[in-house]
């Protein structure tokens, strides 16, 4: 087909639950359409591939101006007072709610989604500088992570790719 050699590379730099999904959803769509996918995890984005963290990603309501109470079924766009965000339990609650909504849409959890991408042929890499900074090792990452590479390696391996920073 015409787009045979199209390649997409995602740079995942965020570890919040909501920011884990864009690369997973677009990456999966890309694989389904025959586009090569590479994902580079850097800084907080490494939480997505960290065995100890991947199942515990969260979304804090604090300082999130888009999160309104309509997510909880309250009509309109009534805000959540910022002071509420600091109450213990609010972040787990918001995270639980988002996971429930995702589940309702049959969107798999992050760990399972990453495995789907790996099985579909996506190549996952961790950022060397971030790995050194956080004191991590390759064993700390889920199985699909191929290697720990430098920014320069990433640039070499994504020649001709469309690069999306998240």
């Amino acid at each position: 087909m015409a787009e045979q050699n199209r390649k997409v590379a995602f740079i995942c730099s965020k570890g919040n639950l909501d920011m884990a999904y864009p690369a997973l959803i677009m990456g999966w769509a890309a694989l389904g359409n025959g586009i090569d996918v590479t994902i580079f995890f850097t800084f907080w984005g490494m939480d997505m591939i960290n065995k100890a963290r991947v199942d515990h990603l969260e979304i804090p309501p604090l300082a999130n101006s888009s999160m309104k109470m309509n997510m909880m079924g309250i009509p309109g766009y009534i805000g959540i007072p910022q002071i509420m965000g600091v109450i213990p339990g609010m972040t787990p609650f918001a995270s639980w709610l988002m996971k429930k909504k995702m589940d309702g849409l049959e969107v798999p959890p992050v760990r399972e989604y990453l495995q789907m991408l790996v099985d579909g042929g996506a190549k996952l890499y961790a950022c060397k500088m971030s790995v050194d900074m956080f004191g991590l090792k390759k064993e700390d990452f889920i199985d699909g992570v191929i290697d720990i590479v430098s920014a320069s390696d990433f640039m070499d391996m994504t020649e001709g790719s469309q690069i999306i920073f998240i």
Partner: protein
Amino acid sequence: MTTRTIAGKTVQVNEEGFLTDPAEWTKEIAAELAKEEGLGVLTPAHWAVIEFCRKDAASTGKAPTLRRITATAGVSTKDLFALFPKGPAKKVARISGLTKPEGCV
């Protein structure tokens, strides 16, 4: 909307070459489209996926997504990508005489 003749049968297709009426699909058409997609001769494993998609679409009214195929038809993601390499989402739907899946997963 245009028509084209596939495996001796004239069918309606959209601009991307997907059949617009699943009822016009035949196994011979699937075999022909599979060749066009570079899959060669369809194996029983291919047919199992195609038949699942046909049945699922007939009951839900839309083409199943890859995730739905792997979760429901008992074929692994790896196998699905090996059976229909380089873009299984479109290939499975096209060969099965369905439109592109609307879902994102």
